[in-house]
């Protein structure tokens, strides 16, 4: 029984139906999927068997590490944060995975949980740092990124060691039970769906978005604000560690630097997908498009034999163009 059981004073039901539902899809999603489609078409027409689904799936599968770390970044961005430490965490995860796998009697069943746990622990440290002080996330995580990078170099003395077991490599290169899907693609999509469902379909997830949109208002409505920040960064560290594992599954060797570029690229993917750095907006549907667009775009640039300086320019230009269109379209709605 609620207070609103008495007959309503006025009923003006808003328009409903498919058309208006479509009209309410955030403009950023249109832009993100538009760009993805454009890249896809470009990719398709530029090469002989461009639309070969097997190839497209492969491109997506190769993007799984970015995909997973983009989930992490999106979660943090929704919380009004930013996590620049995901890159070094991916490196740490890769290094640790290789070391643990070299230990006698090692198996993935023990290695993977340990590595993921380490990621969670680093994330928790970030979370504590940012939830309990006024350090801005950009700088706090930049600092932890520097420290983690230093620790990685210190413990390996520049020489990551260990082995990457074949069972792990199969995740990236193999096909799952004869389907055209690789395990890493499936892992990425499953994580995407799980996080997406939590964010949109649970009390905790919806409140998580509220905290990002307005922490004060959420706090006054009884939402534990700090706890959500802790959860955000812990989740980010955890997912970054998983991304690190997927990365060495793909590359086959641990490295001190391979993850570094993922920090900013994941932000870019999330933002293309409609996450706003001001917090509260963004989601898995958009982030998927952001990652896919980036993956297709890189593939196009690579297959056209475009020199890397020009690739820099094109990448930057596309990003600016995207953000511009996005900004223009949403500005039309006006801000109050």
């Amino acid at each position, binding site marked *: *029984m*609620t*207070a*609103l059981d*008495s007959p*309503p*004073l*006025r*009923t*003006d*039901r*808003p*328009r409903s139906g498919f058309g*208006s539902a479509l009209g*309410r899809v955030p403009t950023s999603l249109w832009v993100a999927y538009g760009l993805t489609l454009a890249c896809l078409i470009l990719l398709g027409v530029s090469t002989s068997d461009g639309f070969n689904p097997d190839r497209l799936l492969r491109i997506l599968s190769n993007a799984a590490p970015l995909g997973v770390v983009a989930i992490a970044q999106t979660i943090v961005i929704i919380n009004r944060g930013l996590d620049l430490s995901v890159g070094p965490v991916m490196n740490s995860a890769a290094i640790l995975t290789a070391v643990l796998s070299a230990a006698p009697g090692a198996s993935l069943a023990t290695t993977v949980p340990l590595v993921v746990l380490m990621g969670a622990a680093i994330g928790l440290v970030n979370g504590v740092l940012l939830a309990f002080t006024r350090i801005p996330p950009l700088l706090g995580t930049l600092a932890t990124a520097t420290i983690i990078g230093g620790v990685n170099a210190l413990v390996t003395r520049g020489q990551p060691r260990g082995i990457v077991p074949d069972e792990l490599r199969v995740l990236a290169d193999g096909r799952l039970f004869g389907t055209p899907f690789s395990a890493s693609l499936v892992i990425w999509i499953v994580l995407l769906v799980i996080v997406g469902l939590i964010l*949109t*379909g*649970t*009390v*905790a997830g*919806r*409140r998580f*978005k*509220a905290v990002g*949109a*307005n922490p*004060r*208002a*959420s*706090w*006054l*409505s*009884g*939402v*534990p604000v700090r706890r959500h920040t802790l959860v955000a960064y812990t989740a980010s560290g955890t997912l970054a560690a998983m991304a690190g594992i997927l990365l060495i599954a793909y590359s086959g060797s641990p490295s001190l630097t391979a993850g570094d570029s993922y920090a900013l690229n994941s932000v870019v993917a999330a933002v293309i997908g409609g996450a*706003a750095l*001001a917090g*509260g*907006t963004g989601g898995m549907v958009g982030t998927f498009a952001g990652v896919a667009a980036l993956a297709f775009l890189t593939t196009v640039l690579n297959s056209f034999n475009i020199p890397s300086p020009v690739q820099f320019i094109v990448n930057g230009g596309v990003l600016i163009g995207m953000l511009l269109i996005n900004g223009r379209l949403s500005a*039309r*709605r*006006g*801000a*109050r």
Partner: protein
Amino acid sequence: MSQPALTCQHVSKSFGATRAVVDVDVTLNRGEILALVGENGAGKSTLMNMLSGLLSPDTGSITIADPPEGGRAVSMVHQELSLFANLTVAENLSLGDGDTTHRSERAKRDVARSTLAGLGVDIDVDATVGDLTVGQRQLLEVAKAIAVTPTLLILDEPTSSLENPQVELLFAAVRRLSAAGTAVVFVSHRMDELFELCDRVLVMRDGRQVDEGPLADRTRDQLVASMVGREASDLYPSREARGDEKDAAGPAAVELVDVSLEGSLSSVDLRVTAGSITAIAGLEGHGQSEVAEVVAGVRTPTSGTLRRAGRPVRLRSPRHAVRSGIGYVAPDRRLDGLLLDQSISANALLAAMPRLFPSGIVGPRRARQIAQRVVSHLAVKHAALTQPIVELSGGNQQKVLIGRWLVDDGLEVLVLNDPTRGVDVGSRAQIYQSIRELTERGVAVLLVSTDLQEILGLSDEVYVMYSGRITGRLDSRTATETAVMHLATGGTAVV
């Protein structure tokens, strides 16, 4: 005086599908004071923003006469405050007066002091704006706007958090300006104020101009009728439904015993009875808000006890308060209430979710139904439930914020701090009705308001505060404004 101060011809403005202002035509001579009235979302602020140049009209033209020597064409007090909270009063005035050349600190303070003195208010020019009360901030905003003797002065709900003496100061200043030839547009949802100050009236409904002419020719009820498009009903719900014995002996939902809060409250004793509306009256800044915040768990008292349903509790944060069935509507909706870019549903569901969906899973269908109930019941003017709440007009946003608690089954105490700020007459009646219905369910309501008529009209029992203390407790049905003001200014109880 030949050329009108403002000529506004066939002005229209749309936001996407929303036609906020449709074909408005108005001329205002120098020295005239125009009342602009209309329901929430009628398009008043949009029109004002176009007059001030913040928004540009889609069609139509706006002409404003040249300002006098050294003056400005338009100055505006916005509905939402536009002050830099981290800066001092003097800095804010210095930044806002258009003359932004560098001045020495002392010169800034001198100018600020004389500006404030011009309005007749006493605010420390070295105070940080963030430390001022909402009322003081609103006065500061007004002082900033009138300091420049503009051709056109726009006041968009400048009195929504002022109390009578402050309103009088404002009116005196506006009359002085109008005598000097400034044309004024005044927006308010308080009818009495309009009749006191204005010469003419423009009524808007759904973006259109529905009535325009001298105010003296119209009655309050006529205005309300043309605003809402139907006959005006009683603003306050009747209290007769409740038996008298119930209110005398009802159980205390919340009780404050000897509660003090460093710097603002000293030994406050207060009882909020289940199933009735308890109000706290007083001049702004005398501790009413703090009492509300203590009950809502926003602040923890330095000493004293808080009893919830008879048991002493420590509310360390709003979360603990919410858990024990206490909800809170804070006065500053943008900062403390709204998830600006999120949908109306997200805003409506924020507080009640854990109790509405005990499993933790939110069914989209049910969520939509609940949000739909909020908007239908409170007649929130909106385009779709998925519309970002920032697109609603101020009053409609406020309705959603209150609705947020109305859908909470577990609510036992509702603390309302200035709940109808900026809400139009018609909607206010709906909100009052809903609050009354809550009490019939046994919910206890604690009401803090700057509007004394609202307190006397709505509540069952009123406490009066002065300087952080309770100076009296009256029965609202018999209390008079004079009696309350007497207590609120430090006099002792007559009852």
